């Protein structure tokens, strides 16, 4: 049975030239969210280090910020995580990696490694995301507690 948990990640947002973003994509946890924007998602406590490393490889006018506070995350774990996700979004999950788009009608970034998937939404939607996940896939046992 899939399980729903609140999750925490550090997020660094990098806006720069295409070449800068290409360079940042070599960072672990980097997700290309736009041609001129990369989002680096990693475990808590890593943002400051990432900002430093990323700042070294981007152009002079690039903007690199610790955007951790701007995101709220929920994780779905278990063998049926992908099935549960099919009740939440029409996005096609890769075997492992990153997709972005509409999840329960909220703008979301989704990271997956096959057995787990992490759904990140702008922080003000965090509780709304949990409520909608439970409403849409609660019948699968996804209940979740408030973050």
């Amino acid at each position: 049975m899939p399980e729903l948990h609140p999750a925490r990640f550090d997020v660094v947002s990098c806006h720069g030239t295409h070449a800068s973003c290409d360079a940042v994509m070599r960072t672990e946890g980097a997700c290309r969210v736009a041609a001129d924007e990369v989002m680096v998602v990693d475990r808590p406590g890593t943002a400051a280090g990432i900002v430093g490393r990323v700042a070294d490889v981007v152009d002079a006018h690039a903007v690199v910020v610790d955007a951790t506070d701007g995101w709220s995350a929920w994780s779905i774990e278990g063998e049926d995580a992908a099935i549960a996700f099919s009740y939440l979004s029409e996005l096609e999950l890769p075997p492992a990696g990153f997709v972005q788009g509409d999840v329960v009608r909220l703008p979301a970034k989704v990271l997956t490694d096959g057995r787990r998937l992490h759904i990140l939404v702008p922080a003000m939607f965090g509780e709304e995301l949990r409520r909608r996940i439970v409403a849409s896939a609660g019948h699968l046992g996804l209940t979740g507690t408030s973050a």
Partner: protein
Amino acid sequence: MSIGSLEFEGARVALHHGDTVGSALHRAGVRTLTRSLKYHRRRGLYCMSGDCPNCSVTVDGVPGCRACMTPAHDGQVVRRDRGLPSADLDLLHAADFAHALLPVGFYYKTFIRPRFAWSVAERIIRRSTGVGRLPVDREPSPEPSRHMRCDVLVVGGGLAGLAAARAASRGGGRVVVCDEGVIGERIGQPDIRRRLRELVDELPDNVQLLEHHTAVGIYEGPLVPLVGPSEMVRVEPQRVVVATGAVETHPVFPGNDLPGVFLGRGATRLAGVHGVLPGTRSVLVAATREGVEQASMLQAAGVTVVAALVNRDLADTVPGSIEVLEGGRVAAAHGSKQIVGVTVVAGGPRRRLDCDALVVSLGYSPRDALLLMGAGLPVRGAGDVVRPGCSPEEAVLSGARAGTDDEVDARAPHVPELGTAGVVCLCEDVDVEDLERAWCEGWRSTEILKRYTTATMGPCQGALCGRHVTAFVSAKLGSPSVPAAVRTSARPPVRPVRLWDLAGGVYHATDRRTALHDRHVSAGARMERSSGWLRPFTYGDAAGEYEAVREGVSLMDVGTLGKFLIGGADAVELIDRVFACRVRDLVPGRARYLLALDEGGYVIDDGLLDALAGGRFYVTSTSGGADRMEAWLRNWADRYGLRAHVLNHTALLGAINVAGPFARELLERLWEGASGPGSIAYPGHADATVAGVPCTVLSVGFVGETSFELHHPRSRGVELWDALLRAGDDLGVRPHGLDALDVLRVEKAHVYIGQDTLPDDHPEKLGLGFAVAMEKGPFVGRGALARMADLPLERKLVGLSFDGTPQRGMPLRHGGRVVGRITSSAWSPACGRAIGLGWVRAVDGTFPSSLRAGDAAVTVVPTPFYDPDGARLHA
């Protein structure tokens, strides 16, 4: 053996294994399951395949359930929807004897004079017709909705569908087969049922079966929604095979809708699958070999088949015990509560045959609505749907071809004969006479005949009668190929869908929450939606909250404001080109009120522009305008080809406004570092640490008192809020909500974009001309403003003083004419009277100053109402 019972209008009806609601009721002797829409004629089981509306009942409070398709279970509650006072004794059946008064389209021509007649007639018509009553007293509970991708979706789990699935699966792709029931369960012939189960058992692992899942349409994509028993599945296949089969042709003759008249497959399904006899004495009409075989099946089940009306070439195949009426046809069926006999014509004089069932198998009408919807999409048909009446072997072959995406040879379907009387559209009670009358009135194509008569527009969507209407028009025009005789469009849903199936995955309101949400709730705030956010309107004492701002110090959660960081090599260029204010002279640490205009020069948002070091800017916008502002900035950056980055920090940052005469003192207590809040220019900003929280402190003046917005990391919001409340305890600090804010900002005549503005308000109309720097270079909207500069203002936003307490939205009158509207109003403690804002139109070139709003006298007054010199703001 009984496996329980259902409740039918107060009586218990025993259930047998495999029963549907319809089969159980028929076994219990219930013949009338509903009444027809218009004439309230009795209707009972007919097709047994969900194609017709004749067995529509309410099951467990859900109206419109097909009794023939709804699995029965113990404890179910079933009732019939129509009839006054009941379906068995229906006084509204009197309409059936008044055809002359209720001709087709009568409601277009009658009840026109006097004018109130239609409103009365409409109410009566609506009450006497309809297809069940919605369960309005039940809480809606949308079913879950999920998404699925596959290579091939096969709709229909018959021989053709399963053959298609097997063929499609050979490539290794993912194949999904859906069927609206359990595969094979509704097939009357045991050998075919067995063969289907064998085919299911042979399906490889890459084929997924979705039984009890009904495809209700095909959309672009293709996207095929499947309605399941407890979910909606939105399937996005690479291609679709439609193998939905065919329904036997609906026969048209007088009395063709009496309970006891069955389509052949329906009768054999009732007998062969459910073990329920359609009747004890039956007359059979068969134009197909399958139809003749049905006679044997009915006999084997215990039905006495008294006569078979067949074509000459089928006569020899009829079992010897049955009287054969070669070339015979049914002239009429007789009965009141159900069929008791038929009049047949078979070469000689008319004969009457007594019977309690009439089984008719004339040919096949493909269920091709999905196929028609799939035109232009990767959709193929297989089996009866493209080769109606095909043999089992043909079905398997065609399925195998469709499964590998090969073309299947089509065969023309049976063209129905209408005769001179009888019901054509069972859903809408349209008979042959109605079609004739409409034709005579000039409605001479299938499309307009459909619209005028409503034939094909009922719940079955023309599944039974669509081809009849086409055949009628073709016969009248003498050719089936003329445009006027083409079939009408097929549209979803092809099967009735419950509203809550469609509601799955739909969310009506999005609640954005600030990091301080729980603090507001625990403080007893009344939380309501405002601009997409849940915000505190008051903490219980709006007057006290107002007073705290004016006389002491107060906090407000303004984390809802749009917040943007603008950077990049061309950041200055972007900001200068998009905003109307001066930009290039703004030094870091200073701020300026900004207006965002569209190309027409009309105000779309406002906010504050703060210059940062390094050519970057921090921009705030209204709470509801953040998404639009982001899109607007990005759009212009793209259009100008500027190297600018727009970072929406609305979610990242919280913001708390500290306002009031003691705001500075409160902040000084928590300020860390040499300079204090007094060092911040107005309007301007500085980075500071307040109560240990890193903040960008903005000096603002929306409420008309000394105010500082502390923009901080969202995760530190609660910490900062609590620290401010603790530190200001002796100053009487308390939070204020939107109710108090509304009074405070009206006193300063500060506009709410959207509430006080109209879509065509340019800055001058709002008295915001000071925020426009026409002398600087081009900016968005400048050209339009320049063109409008010489035009006199025809309308403007003004300050209003009320002798009374008129409400926002009330019209403003001058000399009896409406010349404006109140956009904001409030009781002002500072002014001691009701004040407001509103727009006023010029009358004969001047703006009136004395107006009325209802009974209240209204005077146009200068603004701001409070502290016009801004002394308190700069104190």
